[in-house]
């Protein structure tokens, strides 16, 4: 412990007080009892965690995982060709492509959500155009439905999936493909049997990269999903603010963190494997 200089300890102290301690408080609270009066009682209990598995909350949990997984898969379908295009372009074109992909993400997050609202709303550009063209009679309801949540998730997370796939494709040795072609494979055979299996790890890492933060999403379901489309994060926040049941809210936070840590652990293991494969 002596080997760290004093300045480092200052940094550790800062991290412990402002990050670790608040997080530990939540975890501690999650194993305490809530009395009928709404105060917190310092007795150890796992009741709050067991309540998370009550069907009411298990359903929200299932939905969060399902929606996040579907959105991740959609990002993958859209993101793969984007990464492929970037990887096969060279020099300035590639740089421009990457910058173009990221420019929208330099704007404020809440602004991007607002941009979705004003595009998909009943008076938004999309409905306006479709009505004008006579394709629809009534505005289509996209906001405050699950579709709205999907659009929001895909829009806000896409580039974070493109980048890991792009770097996997970039590192792929072209001689693999040339060898496949020389051995008589056609383009689609080469793609499915040589290119894709070799970037599989990049795909998995990238998918986890967007799937994990999606699980903890709060703002997108809140603003684009309306009252029905709630994620685990929204239930957690409402336990703190609306229900005033802090220990239960804390238990949801604990469970969410556990899932994130497990997913993260898996991601690092995959990443090591990728590095092992590419080294």
């Amino acid at each position, binding site marked *: 412990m002596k080997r760290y200089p004093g300045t480092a300890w200052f940094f550790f102290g800062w991290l412990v007080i402002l990050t670790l301690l608040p997080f530990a408080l*939540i975890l501690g609270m999650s194993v305490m009892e809530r009395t009928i009066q709404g105060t917190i009682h310092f007795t150890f209990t796992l009741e709050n965690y067991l309540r998370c598995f009550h069907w009411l909350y298990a359903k929200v949990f299932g939905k969060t995982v399902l929606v996040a997984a579907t959105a991740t898969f959609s990002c993958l379908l859209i993101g793969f060709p984007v990464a492929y295009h970037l990887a096969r372009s060279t020099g300035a074109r590639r740089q421009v492509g990457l910058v173009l992909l990221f420019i929208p993400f*330099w704007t404020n997050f809440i602004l991007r959500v607002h941009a979705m609202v004003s*595009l998909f709303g009943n008076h938004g550009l999309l409905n306006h155009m479709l009505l004008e063209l006579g394709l629809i009679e009534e505005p289509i309801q996209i906001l405050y439905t699950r579709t709205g949540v999907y659009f929001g998730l895909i829009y806000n997370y896409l580039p974070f999936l493109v980048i890991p796939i792009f770097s996997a494709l970039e590192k792929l040795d072209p001689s693999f493909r040339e060898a496949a072609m020389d051995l008589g494979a056609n383009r689609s055979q080469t793609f499915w049997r040589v290119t894709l299996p070799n970037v599989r790890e990049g795909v998995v890492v990238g998918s986890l990269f967007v799937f994990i933060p999606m699980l903890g999403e709060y703002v997108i379901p809140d603003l684009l999903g309306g009252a029905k489309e709630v994620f685990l994060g929204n239930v957690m926040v409402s336990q703190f603010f609306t229900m005033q049941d802090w220990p239960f809210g804390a238990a949801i936070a604990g469970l969410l963190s556990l899932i994130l840590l497990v997913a993260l652990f898996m991601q690092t293991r995959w990443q090591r494997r990728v590095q092992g494969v590419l080294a």
Partner: protein
Amino acid sequence: MKPVRNPLVAIVFWMVIGLLYLPLLNLIMQAFLVDPRNIGSGFSTIWLRKLFASDAFWRPLVTSIEIGVLAATTAVAVATFGAVGLSRVRSTLPPAVQTLILLPILLPEVITGLSLLIFFLLIRVELGFFTVVLAHASFSASFVYFILVEQLRKLDPQMEEAAQDLGARGSQIFWKVTFPNIIPGLMGGWLLAFTLSFDDFLISFFTSGAGLTTLPLKIYSMMRIGISPELNALSFVMICISFSLVITLLSKEQGREWVLKSS
């Protein structure tokens, strides 16, 4: 990778790029519409002029800048302590220390925000300006730390050793040798921390209490009421601010790498 000609891939790429820009272009267009619900109503700068004339824009803007400046300065100071201290440690850091430094980056924002809120409530600190500054500084310090560590790693350790041999004390070594050499990293880190603070919504949402309004919080509360011409005008201004911040970051050496990493 060797190029394979498949026009479909290029078409998908440009379509996706187009779709990514469409919502933002729509926002910019709406900011100039006389009636945002009617595309045919003509363009004007009336809403922008109204926005600039109102307190509802300037007060949150000033609050956001004040918070950003204080949070970024605090974050850079704390991260410098950590980076300079830990760069002298030769061995790799144990996993527990690594996790501690990464924790602010790894935890989902909603959990960071909530736990800070509960923490502030329990120690009975009044929520407001200073809790938001502390919260922002606490999550950006780790980002700045990684920038500084990278910069310090490029420094020749012999410079510090030479200073030591010539009889300089610890603080002298820092101010006369280390500090001048990491100024680009400090400036880049400061800008990054300012941008993170200026753009943050969720953590401000939890730690600001009732009275304080930053620009993202203003947009949120206006969205809750419904789409209004004022909101569109404010969005346009926000887009302009965000882009100029990023262009400043990009103009710095290595800036692009940091932007990509932090987003």
